[in-house]
């Protein structure tokens, strides 16, 4: 499946109406609303984004199971991908995970003390793990790539293969949390917040899976290409 639905000639506004979940993509690329009838190509030119990258990210978000490819991307796309990933991280850490935490706190108010403690600890541990995961990318992986792009190989004992190998899976525990909240917390522990927690998880699970796809299928192969050029 390649660029299934979208093309550079289509109006940006039509793109958003065809799949509102793309709003999050244009927000993360910092594309401001109010673009009138501008086409995708116009907007990409204005924001100095490559059309292929933009369409690729839209395809990833709109079509589950879409297999991205770097065939039509260039090394110039790397900084845009990093900036996209950084904005997503910010969304996760400063907006989404705090919201999930609040909803979990609300949810467990209805639980007995022991279950409350268990859930709190599980979530706190998970939260720490997620932060560590993003922190590693922000403090080690992205700076490595940025230096690589700016100065060529720095001679440091690091390459993107190490990231690829150790890229931990933060979706697993989220999936576990989903099972626990759906099936195993006792019925007595019920409140409207419990539904909110589940909605949060479904939403973020999908978003994270696309995020991981961008990291593993776009960023890593492109950086490898750059490394080979050195």
């Amino acid at each position, binding site marked *: 499946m390649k660029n299934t639905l979208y093309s550079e000639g289509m109006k940006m506004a039509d793109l958003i109406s065809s799949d509102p979940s793309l709003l999050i993509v244009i927000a993360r690329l910092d594309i401001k609303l109010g673009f009138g009838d501008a086409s995708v190509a116009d907007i990409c030119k204005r924001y100095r984004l490559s059309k292929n990258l933009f369409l690729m990210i839209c395809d990833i978000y709109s079509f589950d*199971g*879409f297999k991205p490819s770097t065939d039509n991307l260039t090394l110039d796309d790397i900084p845009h991908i990093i900036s996209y990933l950084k904005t997503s991280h910010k969304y996760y850490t400063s907006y989404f995970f705090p919201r999930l935490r609040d909803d979990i706190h609300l949810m467990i108010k209805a639980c007995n003390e022991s279950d409350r403690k*268990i*859930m709190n600890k*599980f979530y706190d541990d998970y939260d720490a793990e997620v932060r560590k995961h993003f922190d590693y990318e922000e403090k080690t992986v992205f700076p490595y790539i940025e230096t690589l792009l700016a100065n060529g190989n720095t001679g440091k004992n690091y390459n993107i293969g190490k990231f690829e190998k150790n890229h931990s*899976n933060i979706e697993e*525990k989220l999936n576990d949390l989903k099972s626990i909240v759906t*099936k195993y917390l006792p019925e007595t522990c019920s409140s409207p917040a419990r539904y909110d927690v589940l909605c949060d998880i479904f939403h973020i699970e999908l978003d994270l899976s696309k995020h991981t796809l961008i990291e593993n299928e776009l960023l890593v192969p492109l950086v490898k290409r750059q490394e080979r050029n050195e």
Partner: protein
Amino acid sequence: MNNQLRHRILLIEPSQIIATGLANMIGRHRIFETPTILSDVDKYYTINRDTYDVMIVNPSVFNFRQRFDIRHMLSIDNNTALLIISYGINDENMLYQYDGCISIYDSAEMIEKKLLTAVDSLNGTPKSESDELSGREREILAAVAKGKTNKEIAGIFNLSVYTVVTHRKNISRKLGINSIAGLTVYAMINKLIDVKDYSRNTAEND
């Protein structure tokens, strides 16, 4: 899920169009690797086939007589799931030997469902089996939640490590929980272990 846990599939199909299309559809699913394609059965005997746990075969690569015992023809045991590709109507007399039959008109969802069912039957778990944990599974789950390693658990229950791993896979599949932290939460909510054991167990165990 990492690559090691993906199921490896061998696809024996003479039509390149069908084979490529099917391989692409399957490869998009995250628990299946993109299948290896063979166009006829002669090549099959020259490759290392032990690494595949699912085989999808077009019966037309065999002559009519051979089709009645494809497992035997491919020398595969019951640890490998066998599915066939059908272009049309099948001889009902042959269907018993397969774990599934993929029609070329099936949707992606349908194919996924058939593969998952076949893989499940591979784990020795017919679909009708209840998802309740057995007594032994509950004991093992409690030990996992207390932070014991597979080796320690094997020692405690006098089992092989391999058996412990199989139990753990079954526990995770039944509960829909994979991480140790998640299993621990389940164990405590269900009073399989005491809450105070939790402080000794941390997420680092994963």
